[in-house]
């Protein structure tokens, strides 16, 4: 135990360098900064929605009805600036001179066309200075109000034509009330909303899983690369300490640094992602009613699955690290492992296990790095058999890889092995 702790502490000191801490802090700051920018832009847009939007209007009709429409716009926080010019060209110039962004032109016979139920066409001119998001917001505001007026005019037509009937019952005579059912539990809502909620809720856990597995692999392979590069491995192997203590000390050190990095990363990423997420009204209630939330037991199972996968990543990367000459070659050897981690992450992000092809399913089940991602997806549906089978598979796989790495550590390979892509070089002497 003493030797294990000694190696563990040394690993932490070696891996957790000032440069690494700096890059972690920088990454979190970058995420924070990006999140702040997006949040600022969102707040600005929301503030703008509450502010009054100015609209230049060239009223060629000048009827009582057109004035009524303009009053309606003003009631909806649109400030009307009437343009007195006679030609459209002059009206545009005036609008630009006044620094206004939009010009609405109401045609002659506006009232007559509407009252005669012939329909009419108004013209909207946008003065383009750039492509700022705020201008889009102002335009959307005006369009929304114009649509509202349109709707009101239509409703008036329908009411008049059908003797005071509710226009909604005539436009949409069939209404749908949607429900979702999961494991005999029913909740009001639709599949799209449920998918959006599930996506938002399950975004963070898979990223945390991916990051911790990837970082663990990177840390251990870097550690082996450093031992080779700094020529410290031979000394380490001649110390009076069991090989298993060296391996476990290295793995524990790498796992702790990896988890620390993953947690710091996820804090920054979570803040960044929260700037995008739109809140779904009563979303949490729907998920809870349907039982689509992770229980304490689910988290325990997910934790075991993650722990075993990290153990597999550490053992596999430890073995790969034996073939490395230095840190650079060690990290390039990790590339296939990164692919094996990222592929299931992306597949399971877009496809459900139940609907995918047999070939893809076999690939996912055989790939040990898939299992925590699978667990994070199926646990909320109480599908425990897949998760427990995955845990058993991972335990066997991890035990075998650990056994293999201890075996290799006891042979010449740990010193003489080279990358299979390079030429075998014999030890000097």
């Amino acid at each position, binding site marked *: 135990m*003493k030797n294990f702790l000694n190696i563990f502490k040394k690993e932490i000191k070696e891996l957790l360098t000032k440069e690494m801490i700096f890059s972690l802090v920088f990454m979190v700051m970058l995420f924070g900064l990006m999140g702040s920018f997006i949040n600022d832009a969102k707040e600005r847009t929301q503030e703008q929605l509450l502010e009054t939007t100015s609209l230049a209007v060239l009223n060629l009709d000048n009827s009582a009805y057109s004035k009524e429409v303009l009053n309606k716009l003003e009631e909806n926080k649109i400030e009307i600036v009437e343009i007195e010019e006679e030609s459209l060209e002059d009206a545009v110039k005036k609008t630009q001179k006044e620094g206004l962004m939009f010009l609405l032109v109401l045609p002659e016979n506006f009232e007559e066309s509407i009252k005669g139920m012939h329909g009419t066409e108004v013209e909207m001119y946008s003065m383009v200075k750039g492509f700022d998001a705020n201008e889009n917001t102002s335009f959307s505001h005006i369009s929304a109000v114009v649509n509202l007026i349109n709707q009101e005019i239509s409703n008036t037509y329908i009411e008049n034509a059908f003797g005071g009937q509710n226009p909604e019952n005539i436009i949409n005579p069939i209404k749908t009330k949607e429900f979702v059912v999961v494991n005999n539990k029913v909740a009001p809502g639709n599949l799209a909303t449920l998918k959006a909620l599930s996506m938002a809720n399950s975004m963070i856990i898979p990223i945390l899983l991916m990051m911790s597995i990837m970082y663990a692999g990177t840390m251990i392979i870097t550690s082996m690369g450093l031992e080779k590069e*700094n020529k410290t491995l031979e000394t380490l192997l001649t110390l009076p300490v069991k090989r298993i203590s060296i391996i476990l000390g290295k793995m524990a050190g790498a796992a702790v640094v990896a988890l620390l990095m993953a947690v710091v990363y996820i804090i920054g990423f979570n803040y960044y992602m929260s700037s995008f997420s739109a809140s779904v009204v009563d979303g949490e209630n729907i998920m809870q009613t349907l039982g689509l939330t992770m229980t304490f037991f689910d988290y325990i199972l997910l934790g075991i699955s993650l722990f075993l996968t990290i153990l597999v990543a550490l053992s596999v990367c430890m073995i790969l690290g034996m073939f490395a000459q230095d840190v650079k070659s060690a990290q390039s050897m990790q590339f296939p492992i990164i692919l094996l981690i990222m592929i299931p992450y992306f597949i399971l992000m877009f496809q459900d296990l139940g609907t995918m092809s047999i070939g893809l399913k076999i690939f996912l089940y055989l790939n040990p790095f898939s299992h925590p991602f699978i667990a994070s997806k199926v646990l909320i549906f109480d599908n425990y058999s897949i998760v427990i089978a995955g845990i058993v598979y991972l335990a066997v796989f991890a035990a075998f890889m650990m056994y293999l790495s201890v075996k290799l550590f006891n042979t010449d390979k740990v010193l003489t092995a080279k990358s299979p892509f390079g030429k075998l070089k014999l030890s000097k*002497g």
Partner: protein
Amino acid sequence: MTKAIEIKNLLKDYDNFRALKGISFEVREGEIFGLIGPNAAGKTTTLRIIATLLQLTSGEVKVFNHDVIKESEKVREMISYLPEEAGAYKNLSGREYLEFIAQFYAEDKSKMEKILNKGLELAKLGEKVTDKVSTYSKGMTRRLLLARALMIEPKLAILDEPTSGLDVIMSQEIRKIIKDFAQHGVTVLLSSHNMLEVEFLCDRIALINNGEIVEIGTPTQLEREYNAKNIEEVFIKAIE
């Protein structure tokens, strides 16, 4: 006299290449024994096998009567190995590095302190001992590594080219330290290219060439036998 090292018919193959072709020799307790030979003669391979780093193809290697394969953990408790191209952990300070190594040998705090003080005394790094190893010169690092190897007062010190790449003054200092330790009962097995160093340090030497031991004896004995002025001449005549 107790045998510190006993090697019988040692054979070592790397795939299709035979690095050691059945060598045999013994090192007595308390002596400084030199293994001398050109590049790729088999010196480092021999030292690595004794240090329990490499497996042997056939033969027998014992350290203080313990088999290096079957009783490798026992052997590791008695030896200290300094590889030719060794380095120290760059993100640790010199002191932290010595502490890290001392932990494996100290049963209690007082023993730990004793080992560490010995290491600090040998390393002679002064205030730099708290600086990171990455800031050390080659000479300072080599001194730190030698201090690491000797501070635990091993029964057998295996030193591969102990003064390799060092300047004259530093080399002389290191030779003195090695000689001093041997006088206090530490058995030393070293390899070297430097014939003067070998002549100054070693009680006995073995000339190794092409995976075979060519000669074994004291420097004076070999010089007389080959009618040579020095070991360099002995070496050239022996491998011709």
